[in-house]
């Protein structure tokens, strides 16, 4: 059972197709990454999921029901472009946003207080938003996104504008929520963040789905059988059996082995030639490299 399922979702604006036949499923309790460069259609897709706009065609299911107006209350959405009322007090602001998510006045107040307490920010309660630093405001934004305990958390570029300390704090919080069973849809153009956090991803470019699947599987699919070797001594001058020296620098060499070959063969070969092996590991392509490879391949066609 998936918590979120998109089927052939398409959205057009004037002359431009923002979302072009996108389909994917998000498993409950996982972190799902939505990747793509700026303007790829990520935010447009999120706006459809959060019912801010409707799709021109295609279907969206939330917890196996056709998406409807009651669902956004069970989602928490941290938009990429976000702001707060500068003149409002932090406590009032959090309660206001929580009440708009359907909490009663009493529940909103207790939960907001508890949440601020956990983020060591309870003394901000009576401060005006404009008195806080940017990082603090981001934290308040994040709290407002999760205070109603959503089952699906949608984060659009959550780390922009955050310093390393706050970044890791929010990262920890994301993992804590994941362990509690919250599903997280994580949208970003910074691919390296995704590799660390996400199980499954979708890559979007020009509104189209260019890649979908499990991060490890994708990296294995796109691997080029490259192995990095740390060594002492001399490498053999010649290679046979399809082995290929790709790069060599400062006691490190990168080899490519033929598809049917195994790394053991390379290792044996090197050891026989009198090299002293210090390190040996496979090089998997980063999502960033895969993305660039796919996009370039597409545009060359």
């Amino acid at each position, binding site marked *: 059972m998936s918590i979120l399922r998109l089927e052939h979702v398409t959205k057009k604006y004037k002359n431009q197709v923002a979302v072009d036949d996108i389909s994917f499923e998000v498993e409950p309790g996982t972190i799902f990454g939505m990747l793509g460069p700026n303007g790829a259609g990520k935010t447009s897709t999120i706006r459809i999921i959060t019912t801010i706009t409707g799709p021109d065609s295609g279907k969206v299911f939330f917890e196996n029901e056709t998406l409807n107006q009651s669902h*956004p209350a069970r989602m928490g959405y941290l*938009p990429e472009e976000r*702001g707060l009322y500068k003149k409002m007090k932090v406590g009032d602001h959090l309660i206001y*946003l929580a*009440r*708009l998510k359907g909490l009663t006045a009493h529940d909103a107040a207790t939960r907001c207080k508890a949440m601020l307490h956990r983020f060591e920010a309870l003394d901000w309660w009576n401060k005006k938003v404009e008195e806080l630093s940017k990082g603090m405001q981001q934290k308040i934004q994040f709290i*407002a996104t999760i205070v109603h305990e959503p089952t699906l958390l949608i984060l659009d570029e959550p780390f922009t504008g955050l310093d390393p300390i706050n970044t890791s704090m929010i990262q920890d919080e994301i993992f804590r929520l994941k362990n509690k069973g919250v599903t997280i849809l994580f949208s970003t153009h910074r691919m390296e963040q995704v590799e660390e956090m996400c199980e499954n991803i979708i890559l979007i470019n020009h509104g189209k789905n260019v890649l979908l699947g499990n991060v490890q599987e994708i990296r294995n699919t796109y691997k080029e059988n490259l192995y990095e070797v740390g060594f002492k001594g001399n490498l053999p001058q010649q290679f046979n059996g399809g082995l290929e020296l790709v790069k060599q620098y400062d006691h490190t060499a990168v080899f490519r082995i033929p598809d049917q070959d195994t790394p053991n063969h390379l290792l044996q070969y090197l050891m026989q030639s009198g090299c002293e092996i210090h390190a040996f590991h496979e090089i998997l392509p980063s999502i960033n490299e895969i993305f660039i490879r796919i996009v370039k391949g597409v545009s060359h066609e």
Partner: protein
Amino acid sequence: MNSKVWIVAKREYLTRVQKKSFILVTLLTPITIAVFIFFMGWMMNAGSKSDQRVVIKDETGIIQQMAAEDKSFPYEFSDRNVQKLKEDYSSQGYDLLVYIPALRDSSTMSISASYYSREKPSLSLLESIESHLADQVETFRMRRSNIDQHLLDSFKARVNLENGAMDPNNPGGSVAAGKLNIIIGTALGFIMGFMMYLVIFIYGSMVMRSVMEEKLSRIVEVMVSSVKPINLMMGKLIGVGGVGLTQLALWAFLIPVVLTIAHALVPGVDPSHMTNVGSVNEDSFDNFSFHQAYDAFFSLKWWLILPVFIIFFLGGYFIYSSLFAAMGSAINEDMGEGQQLMMPIVIVVLCAFYMLFPVLSNPNGSLAVFASLFPLFSPIIMPARLAFDPPWWQIVLSIVIMLCTVWFFIWLTSRIYRVGILMYGKKATIREMIKWIRYSD
């Protein structure tokens, strides 16, 4: 209605009402009005009296003799030699010397006079002197013809046109209430029309600015994930409208209080001078006592006027402020764009405002009927007509048309709003906004 609308409306209302600027404006406006009224009253008093000193050398003796009996004659006489006076009238502190030489022919009594002044005297001063002199000559001639002043006074006639269909149950107003009602109705109509005009701009631009700020600070991005744009817009309109009602209610209470206090504290200045400003003729007002005016004022159908005024206040507010909200949603960064987009609205409101003048001079004419039914004008025009007892079907029809328009405009503008608030970068034209209306959800 959706409970989120009320949560939004409550915030919009409370944040504005608790602002220092709101409290200041609400308190200072009545004080400013009081100061303005008393200043105008003072100006009128001061303007009617000339502070120019005039000395008259009357060689006929007639003027001086008659003027001695006329208490309202404001000028002084001198018996000194003309030549001497011409030399030193200004060093004596006079601004103007009037010389009336002796009569050449006592039978015709044609008086000729000339004036001497260092500076050019004002036309009104000269006219005032001429009329005062003429009065004395007239009195003198009547005396010489043995016409008694009382006899002459008894010839003068005055006809007061009264309303034959006056309400018999309201004897207090029967004496002169016909004309007085019209005067008070005109003043009241003008005040109500003017207030509607102010309300549309003050609260309309308040809505527009606030929509723009929410868009530019990207708060809407956070809001729209929990609230539908139309509910967000409705909440804002209701909240700001509530602020408007609160302010009006406070003013309705504070302005009379401040005026009464000011009247008690500043003696000698009569605020009723203020009623002379504008379309009300001074002469026609002088014939009524304060008591009659008071009676006529309270004999107006306030039980009808006040609720209907509030309905039109809200209707006009929703029609125009929803337009302002749509405009605000289409603005990017630059306030100048907003002014451009506002122009068509401003022109329509100004048209309605200037229509007040012909409508009030003929409050049941065809222009008045058309303007009070046309929903873009009716919020300003219909309240202004209320004191003139328009037919009830016109009031009802006007309200029905207006409410339909409110509903239609909120539907229309919310479709622009929902696209506009999430659209950045490009400058939106009106043509583009019309396209937004047709966008699917």
